[in-house]
Structure formats: C-alpha cells, structure tokens
C-alpha cells in the first residue's frame, strides 16, 4: 500500500497519513527521519521512526566514565571518578548526603558540565553529543519532575511530545506505562490529588516514556512511606527485568543498595572508595577486624550505653529495643573490653551474638577511619581544605 524510499530495513512502524488518514507501515532504522509517500492520497511527508537508535559502542557498557571531575568553586564535588556500568544491570551509587552522587547523575544527564574528564552514555559523549545522550536516558531526580495542576496523562503526554513521539505510539505507550504501575484508573486525575507514593510511580514512568536505555534513579525512595518505598523498589526491579533497562540508582540506604543492585560503587567526598558486587564488598572486611555484636542486656541502663560508647574500640552503637544493643567495633580486644565494662556496671548480659558483616560495616570500614587516613595521605601533595557534609560523620567515627 505504501512505498517507501529507503533501504534501511530494521523495524516497521505504523503511521497515519495526516491528509487522508490511511495507516501504513514504514520501515526504517529507529530514530531515522524519512520522506515517505502515501499511496492512498500520494501526499509526501516526513516521519521519524520511533525508538532508540543502536548505541555506537559494542563493548557491553551502557556508561563509561573516565576521570570525571566537577569543581564548585574550589570544592571538588566529584573528584576523579572512573567506572563503567554494564548494559542491563542495576548499578548502585551508595554514599552519604553530599558525597557527590547527584552531581555524577547530573553530569551523566548532561545537566551539568564536568570540569574535567568525560563519560559516554549509550555510546555517546556527554559533552560533544549531549543531544544524542538525552534521547537515550530517563531521569528520576530527587525532586519530582511533574506538574501538579496537570493530570498524569497530560504529564506523560508533554514529555512524550518533547521526545517527538507520534500521537498513536504515544497514546499506546502512556496506556502501557500506566497499567505497568496499575494507575490506569487515575490517568485523568490531577497529580496534586495523588499520595506521595502514587506521585512517585507516575514520576518513574514519566522517565520511561521515551523507552530509555538508561534510567537514572536519584534517591527514588526519599521521603516515601515504607509501603511506597517497597513498591518503588519492586518497580525498579521490574523495569530492569521486563524492559531490560540499565539503571543507575543512587541511595544512602544500605539495604536498598544491597537489595536492588548487582554492583555497588561506594562514594565518599567525591571519590569512589570501593566498587563491586554486594557479596564481594562484604568479603572486603572479612579479613579485617571490624566486627558487629548484638548484645542483649536484661537490665539495660543509659549509663551502660555511655560507658560502652566511650571505649576506643567501639565505632558505633545503636540501641535496637529496650534490651538489645548493636555495637560495631574494631580491634581484637573489643569483645573483652565491652564485657569488662558491662560487668563493672553490673549488667546482666544474657546473650552476645557476632553478626555477619553487612554492607553497613563495609561502608563504615571504608568511609570511616581507615578511608579517612588514606584520603589524607593522598592529599598531602595538594593541601586543599576538605569540607562538605560528610565531614561531620567522619569526625564522630574518629
């Protein structure tokens, strides 16, 4: 019915002729612009085959970051960061607030220009080919990218239109995405009538409207209630599994990173301090002297906590309930010291359990004292004052 004037034959897409309404199939490379002739009414028109173009790189990496650096004034928010994110994985960037996670994401989204270094996203350079990069990414930022006065459908439509999706495809995509997060019933309700959890679901699918190869989730569960948090985590997994989307997730919640990510980069003070799978990261500290004890004390009193906390070998202490303490320690004599101290205070110790190392231990180990010392060694050559929100925590650990 429709004759087309190109040799590239990769995918077929249906377009409606704007003059006579005849629907015809057009073949072309995704993202390609074609001049086609409608056989029914013989009118010529220009179409864009939807969908992502094939990335240029073939080495299986969705993102390759090389010596990326971002200075805000003198302060290095991101300090010589290099890593790769493999196609189809969920990659976690774990770090405290102000560690530089969001700045890395913003540079990868072409929202901020790196001071030095560069990165390739979906095979395109973030500086030289920013326009191409933008076609292949979806962003769920810390602040929701949605207009409250508009309905869910209108929000999705706006962004679909900014990605040049033709009407029919867009309507189909919007319906698919809404049913993907079970929000079909709410499609035509305004965003400001939604709960935070519902908003976040729409916010996530809004980033999927262009079927991005790479999805950035910047603290996606921040400020959500436990149920919505679980929903968004589940959704993250499903996007990765069902759409094959590569996901970079930033979080400061260890559990979230451990539960979702295949590989995790731990970032502190703008530097990647470790990067591996959660299991391998835990192995990092199996040979070290970091140990976590769960201690049950029948007559637990505040003064006992104070006494244990003041021990030099105790790195952190959390009271889990009226009788349980979670104590993270370093050094071989830590256990003896704690028990001695508790005895002196006449504590009735019912149970002491040596816990498996968690990601939290790894994090403290890496960003705590030892990591700090390494950092200061590295920086002796350039005596630059270090500041940033991470510093306060480091002091406490010291």
């Amino acid at each position, binding site marked *: 019915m429709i004759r087309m004037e190109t040799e590239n034959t990769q995918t077929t897409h249906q377009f409606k002729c704007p003059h006579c309404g005849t629907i015809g199939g057009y073949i072309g490379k995704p993202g390609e612009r074609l001049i086609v002739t409608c056989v029914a009414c013989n009118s010529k028109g220009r179409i864009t085959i939807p969908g992502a173009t094939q990335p240029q790189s073939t080495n299986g990496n969705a993102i390759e970051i090389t010596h990326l650096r971002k200075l805000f004034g003198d302060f290095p928010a991101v300090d010589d960061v290099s890593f790769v994110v493999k196609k189809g994985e969920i990659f976690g960037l774990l770090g405290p607030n102000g560690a530089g996670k969001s700045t890395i994401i913003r540079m990868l*989204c072409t929202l901020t220009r790196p001071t030095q270094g560069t990165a390739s996203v979906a095979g395109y350079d973030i500086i030289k080919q920013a326009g191409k990069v*933008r*076609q292949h*990414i979806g962003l769920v930022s810390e602040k*929701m990218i*949605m207009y409250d*006065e508009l309905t869910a459908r209108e929000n999705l439509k*706006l962004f679909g239109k900014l990605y040049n999706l033709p009407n029919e495809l867009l309507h189909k995509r919007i319906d698919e995405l809404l049913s993907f997060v079970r929000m079909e019933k709410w499609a035509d309700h305004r965003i400001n009538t939604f709960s935070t959890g519902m908003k976040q679901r729409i916010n996530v699918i809004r980033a999927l409207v262009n079927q991005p190869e790479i999805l950035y989730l910047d603290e996606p569960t921040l400020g959500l209630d436990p149920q919505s948090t679980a929903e968004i985590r589940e959704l993250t997994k499903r996007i990765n599994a069902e759409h094959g989307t590569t996901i970079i997730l930033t979080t400061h919640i260890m559990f979230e990173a451990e539960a979702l990510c295949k590989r995790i980069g731990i970032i502190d003070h703008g530097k990647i301090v470790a990067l591996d799978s959660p299991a391998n990261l835990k192995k990092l500290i199996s040979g070290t002297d970091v140990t976590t004890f769960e201690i049950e004390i029948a007559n637990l009193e505040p003064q006992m906590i104070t006494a244990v906390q003041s021990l030099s070998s105790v790195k952190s202490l959390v009271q889990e309930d009226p009788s349980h303490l979670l104590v993270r320690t370093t050094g071989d004599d830590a256990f003896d010291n704690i028990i001695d101290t508790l005895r002196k205070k006449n504590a009735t110790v019912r149970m002491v359990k040596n816990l498996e190392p968690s990601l939290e231990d790894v994090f403290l180990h890496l960003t705590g004292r030892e990591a700090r010392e390494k950092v200061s060694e590295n920086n002796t050559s350039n005596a630059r004052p270090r500041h940033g929100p991470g510093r306060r925590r480091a002091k406490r650990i010291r």
Partner: protein
Amino acid sequence: MSVKNVIRHSGWICWKDLLEFSRSKLRLIMLVLMPLFMMVMVGFIFPSGSTISDTPIALVNNDTGTLGSSFVTQLETINNQTGMMDLRSAQDFNDIKTKLQNNDINGGIIIPENFSSDIRSGKQGLITIVIDQSNPQMSLTIQAVLTKTIEAMGKQTAIYNMNSTFHVSIATATSMVTPYTVESKGIVPGEPNYFQFVAPGIIAMVVMMALMTGLPHAISYEKDIGTLDGMLAAPINRLSIILGKVMAQTVRGMIQGFIILILAVVLFGVVIEGNILLVIFLILLTVFSFVGLGILITSFTDKEETATMVMMTLMFPMMFLSGVFFPLQQMPWYMQGIAKFLPLTYATTALRKVMVLGADITAVWSDVLILVGFGIILLAIAVPMFQRAMSK
C-alpha cells in the same frame, strides 16, 4: 535540531503552561480583575478634565451694599444648574482657614466689605478665591472653574448694563464685551478624555508586565521545584523552553490587553479610531521588544525571589517614565531623555497615535523600527546568556 522541532517543542511547553494556568481558578479570576482594577483605578484617580461637582466651598459675604448679595444670588442660580459646588457660608478669612485645615471645605470665596461701593464708584469689584495649597490638583481646578465662572458672570453683568444703560442690543453688547470667541476642534470626533489618553498606554504596560513578571517567574519557579531538569534532560533545544514560556506569557498578556481594550470601549467610552489589526500588531511588537529583557533577567537570577525583585525595580520606573499616565512633554528634559531609552515609550506613543488619532502604519513606522531594534539588540544579548545559564 531543526527550526520546526524548536517551534513544535515550544508549542507543547506553551500548551503545558497555559493548561497549568487555566487550572487555577484564582489565577483566572485575577487575569480578569487585574486589568479591570487597573482601568478603573487610573480612570478615576487622575482628574479627568477640569470640571468639579458638589465640591464644598465656603462663601463669605462681607459686602455692606446690595451688589454682594445679588452676586451671591447669581452664583447660586448658576450653581443650581451645574451642581459644581456645595456652597456653605463662613464668617471671614480666618473661618475659611480653620475649615480648610479641618478638611471641611476645598476652597473659599470672599466678597469684601467695599465690593458694592467700589463698583458704584466706577472701580472693579474684587472677589478673592481662597485655595487649598495642600491639594494642588484640586486648587488648580477650583481656581480655574471659579475664575471662569466669575468672569462669565461679570461679562453677563456688563452686557446687561450696556443693554439697559446705553440701549444697545444684547447681541451687539455681547460682541463688544467679548469680541473673541474660541471653539476647540479635534482631528477625530469626540471630546478629549483621560481614558482615551491612558488606555493605549495601559494596554502596552499590562502586556509588558505580564511578560516581565511571568517569564522569570515561570523559569525560576521550574528551576526551584526541579521540573526544569526534566525539560533540560530531554532532547530539545534550550530555545524551545524559553520560546514556549514566552508564547504562554504573551497569550496571557494579550488576553489582559484585550480585556482592557473591551473595558475601555464598553465602560469608558473609548473609541478606537485606527485599524484594530494594526493595534494587535503593535501589541505583539511591544512583546517582541521586551522579551529579550525578560530572558536576560531570567538568565542571571538563580532564584524566583531575586528575579521578581529585579523585575519590580526595573518595571516601576518604566511604567512612570514612558508616558503611560502622564504626557512626556510635562517631564523635565532629563527625564524625557531617559524615556527615550525605554521601549515602552515608543510602544505607548505608537499605540496612542493609532488608537486615539486613527493614524496608519506610515505615521508610526519610526516607532515600529525602534521597537524592532530594541527587540533584536536585547535578544542578541539575552539568548546566548540564557543558553549559557542553562548549561552550567
């Protein structure tokens, strides 16, 4: 990225902005109320013409003769017809002073003791008008009206006296007493009125205000709440964003401009003498001449609050120095000099020529060229600044 794409994307951003705007009832109400208030306000706070009505005026008659009271009777008769004054009696000058200070009256008329005797002895009878110096606008009007009225009364008396004393006909007496008469004739029909003067300026100003306040607000607000990132991360030209915003704000400004136009015609009897299409073209040109300034301020202000402050600081002098409310010719030369650098001046002048005097494009082409010039220069500075600001 093609021009077509830039325009298409900006169209969708404009659609979004207008949709958002239309969803807020309060904003819609304000959209209509603002021009209404504006028009009613400027229409009534500035004196329209030199007429007064029911103004409290104290009258002191100290005359010992009869001519004083006949003057009062004559004044009262005239006043009953025109309703200009609310005449109240007073004792003397000091009484008038107290009453003026208490704000009970707006002025006074004093007929002195020797009023009758002076006239009888062949001299002019003196009548004193007391004015309120704290209210220059009002005293000017009262002075003018009373002087005119009293002079007319004097002429009337003279004509009557000539008629009765020398037996000249009334017509001859009139032409002898007042040999000259004046008739005012405009180039378009109708009396000059303040609304007619101020409406074109207000239209230009409201369109400017909508754009100047709306544009930085729209951009910095989206920056603050984070939605701008969504657009910046999409494969669209940065220009689409600003163009879409400009389009939305222009539509808003134009709606307000038209509300003023309709109000001016329907409620205030303003007659549009020129071509309405030329009026619309000039309004759009006004927008074009201002867009650059709006974008410029948006580019170098990071927060909504800062942007609004900068806008307000720039907007108020522009409003008052561009001849919107007062004719430029009334201003001292240096102020007129400043006005020459404000695009609003040319927009107001051109709109006024077309709307009030029925001028066609040939009469305003120089204003049009200057406005185009302002637009091009400001945009040439603003667009690169904006592109840079958006990719920090």
